[in-house]
């Protein structure tokens, strides 16, 4: 038994996302005038070989803080899914 950690890393709202801005401009040019903004983040799937949900959660949180996200300018969220 293991857990699949679905991790999303996003730039803090206060940080300018130039990639997202370029995408939003492209959408505007395509005629999507109601698409007000686009922000680009990262999606990481990690398999955590742990039986225990709490332990898997702890590891997920730790890897985000240590490596996957930069706390100065990024936020993260983790969703755990049980897999066999």
């Amino acid at each position, binding site marked *: 038994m293991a857990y699949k950690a679905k991790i999303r890393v996003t*730039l803090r709202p206060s*940080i*300018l*996302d*130039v*990639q997202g*801005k*370029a995408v939003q401009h492209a959408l505007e040019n395509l005629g999507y005038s109601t698409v007000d903004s686009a922000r680009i983040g*990262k999606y990481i799937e990690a398999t955590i070989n742990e039986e225990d949900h709490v332990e898997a959660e702890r590891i997920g949180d730790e890897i985000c803080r240590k*490596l*996957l996200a*930069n706390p*100065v*300018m990024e936020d993260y969220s983790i969703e755990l899914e049980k897999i066999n």
Partner: protein
Amino acid sequence: MDTVTIGIVVFPGSNCDHDTEFAAASFSKTTTRMLWHKEHDLQGSDVVILPGGFSYGDYLRAGSIAKFSPIMQEVVTFARKGRPVLGICNGFQVLLECGLLEGALSRNRDKKFICRHMHVKVENNRTMFTSLYNENEVLSLPVAHGEGNYYAPEKTIDSLEEHEQVVFRYSDAEGHVTEEANLNGSVSAIAGISNREKNVLGLMPHPERASETLLGSSDGSKMFEGLIEHVLG
């Protein structure tokens, strides 16, 4: 001590390591050592330089994976002892990621990779890196980066200013810090900062690419000379 050993860290993806070695070796009284990222030994370095490039392909975030390499554990210990550590461009990103310096670097404001000479003003010449420059001296140094937009929360910026840790700012040729001169959009036009103890410096411009007039500018040489003088005492 009559010679200064300058250690240059080589990560997979470093691409300014040999330029840095060339610049460092061009001064008398220096020997250079290339320090592979998997090593644990700084080989007697008196100064450690983290060169520019794309360490680990800039995967995840620039500098994020390099900070866990074996050699970086040694560099952090070396820095904590007050020994000189200089991070250039990607090296600056690594120093921020490993916590020796505060803040982060994000993508340039105008989405462009900037590759040109820029004017940089010396804000603080009371460091071992900048002692041979005059205060407010304007240097012409090349930059080459896509992620050089310095960011830190306001509280951190205030603290950097208060402790005179802002060492370089982008400016125009006359030394005026203007929005136009701050090409990458850095907060407070910051081009380089030090730690509070002033023995760790990170900057986006490349002093090693401005180490002789043949390269278009020799404004970077005094940084190397200053460090060498500092070590020799």
